[in-house]
């Protein structure tokens, strides 16, 4: 078997809580005061509860040319692992051997200075990332055309739009040519078109035989870029192996966790004491009849609502859907839309919603009921649901609400024949 390009053996990193990334810096005077105190104390070397293991017992090998995704929730230790491998910080125990030149891309635009021009920053940033002046010069034109900012090269980057800034910064990084590339979630910035381009460039880099370690929350990107995946949780490896398999297990696990949020809501008596007709309970199901509040793009959502009270005549239930930004996304109404009015004896109604052509994010539902022209009950913020994945198109591009709109509409792109430039 081929010798691995990276071997990691029982790697661990312990942090002191309160240090790093807080206002709690150590002050020299405190240290002096404490050391005076400590002279009179017995030195105990017990495990300090203030210390936590950000990584513990990490062991794996990576073959040359392998593309490895690293996934896991926040605080799982993904970034710490990359920081250790890129020598930014030292492990507390264990060791790693790396046979090749490493470039790490934990952030785009490291070392960019707002007062310097685009051109100056390209050279600066390149040097920080470990490129020589000659290398940068050779790649300069390529970098500039990749970033699409030719006209602004002599403008200080403080005048750039955030999109231009990111494009230039990523362009430099994308032209690094190390044997091993460590990439943190840097694609979560910039506009969609450019993100796509960066993913393409990364794919190209990966195909070029380079070894890539890629941290991301974007499962679509992980699936399309990586062959194998390491899943971390609380600083330990949960599973490693084939990308599709590990990602699927990871997602299932995420769904189970989410599902602890309630899919049945009972209304409090307090809320309905003056109402003659009202919703008393709601339950959310998926198409297979399982209780859940988790859905994917194009799934169907089913609400079972219970009603109480004495309506005089037929009634029409309605629902509104709001997204996480508070935007009114869609609504449904039995009477006006479908001509369906329920008789006053009905006490349980099934509402089927979908396919949900919604972008990934959180949503909440409002229920109301109309009798004639009177809205006799409104139950706001009844129940929430989450669209965990929205990758409707062939590239598996993930479409989240906060960035790319409230819903997905069908689309296609094609060129018009006979109109090409000569």
């Amino acid at each position, binding site marked *: 078997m081929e010798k691995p390009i990276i071997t990691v053996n029982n790697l661990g990193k312990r942090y002191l809580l309160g240090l790093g990334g807080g206002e709690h810096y150590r002050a020299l005077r405190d240290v002096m005061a404490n050391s005076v105190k400590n002279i009179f104390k017995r030195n105990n070397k017990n495990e300090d509860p203030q210390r936590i293991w950000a990584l513990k017992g990490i062991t794996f090998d990576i073959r040359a040319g392998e593309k490895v995704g690293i996934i896991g929730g926040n605080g799982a230790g993904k970034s710490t692992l990359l920081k250790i491998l*890129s020598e930014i910080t*030292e492990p507390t125990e264990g060791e790693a051997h790396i046979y090749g030149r490493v470039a790490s891309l934990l952030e785009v635009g*490291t070392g960019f200075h707002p007062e310097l021009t685009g051109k100056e920053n390209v050279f600066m940033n390149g040097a920080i990332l470990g490129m020589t002046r000659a290398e940068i010069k050779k790649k300069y034109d390529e970098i500039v055309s990749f970033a699409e900012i030719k006209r602004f090269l002599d403008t200080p980057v403080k005048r750039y739009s955030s999109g231009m800034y990111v494009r230039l910064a990523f362009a430099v990084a994308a032209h690094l040519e190390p044997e091993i590339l460590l990439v943190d979630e840097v694609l979560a910035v910039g506009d969609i078109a450019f993100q796509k381009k960066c993913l393409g460039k990364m794919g190209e880099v990966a195909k070029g035989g380079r070894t890539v370690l890629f941290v991301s929350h974007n499962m679509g990107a992980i699936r399309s870029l990586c062959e194998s995946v390491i899943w971390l949780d609380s600083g330990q490896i949960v599973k490693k192996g084939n990308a599709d398999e590990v990602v699927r297990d990871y997602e299932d696990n995420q769904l189970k966790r989410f599902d602890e949020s309630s899919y049945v809501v009972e209304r409090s008596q307090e809320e309905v004491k003056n109402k003659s007709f009202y919703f008393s309970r709601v339950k959310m199901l998926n198409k297979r009849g399982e209780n859940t509040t988790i859905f994917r793009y194009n799934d169907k959502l089913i609400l079972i609502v219970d009603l109480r009270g004495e309506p005089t005549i037929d009634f029409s239930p309605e629902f509104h859907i709001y997204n996480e930004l508070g935007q009114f996304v869609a609504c449904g109404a039995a009477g006006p839309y479908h001509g369906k009015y329920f008789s006053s004896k009905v006490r349980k109604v099934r509402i089927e919603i979908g396919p949900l052509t919604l972008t990934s994010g959180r949503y909440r539902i409002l229920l109301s009921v109309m009798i004639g022209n009177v809205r006799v009950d409104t139950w706001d913020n009844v129940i929430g649901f989450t669209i965990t994945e929205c990758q409707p198109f062939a590239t598996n591009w993930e479409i989240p609400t906060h960035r790319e709109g409230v819903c997905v509409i069908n689309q296609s792109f094609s060129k018009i024949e006979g109109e090409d430039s000569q």
Partner: protein
Amino acid sequence: MNTEYVKVIKKHHGLISIDFNELWRYRELFWFLALRDILVRYKQAVIGIAWSILQPLFTMVVFSVIFGRLAKLPSDGVPYPILIFTALLPWQFFAHSMSASSQSIVGSASIISKVYFPRLIIPTSAVISGTIDFCISFVILIGMMVWYKIVPTANIVYLPLFVLLTFTAALAVGLWLSALNAEFRDVFYVVPFLVQAGQYISPVAYSSSIIPEKWKFLYSLNPMVGVIDGFRWSILGTATPHWIDITISAASVLVIFTGGLLYFRKMERTFADVI
């Protein structure tokens, strides 16, 4: 597979030697970082350059009036303003570079926590970036010497040695303070005090000839004593320098520098965790 770059990542214990090969590989970064500081500083060109001309001139005038005219301190046979300016030249370089250097690690937190390169580059390039001000002051000194019709002596050939000593002294103190500052933020408040006190315990505003002989040894432990005496001697040819004192200062620079390097190397492993 490239066996040329084999890297072992693990916890290091004790003192770490300096990897000169690696520093050489990153040599361009020294200049890029220094250049960045210089470019940023002189981008607002008029203010930037005016400031580096006015500050030494103003200090010289104040010192000449107070110590030369009012206190009537001896001037070793040269005009008092010249005596002062030959000292201000290395002193201000030292003071600025050392302050910049001591802030440099904390000031580069965003880079340090995101990318690896030899950390020694940061305080060093902060010192290098002070050379522009030094050159500007040097031009002013030449102008003043023309004005006072003073011809430098042959000793001037030794000047580069003392420039190097100044540079080393600034870096030596900068290494200590930058590493200390990363760990203990209150070092920030100590630096201005050091600069102020240093100005008086170094022969900036006066000639070191007024120091009583019995205190000379202690006095010369201050690295800047040897530097300033050396500058005055090589530029003005003032009374034969006290070689013993200069040697003591130079030795003191070396000790601080070596200690600073070792301390810095020891501390740099945790920079990314504490800043």
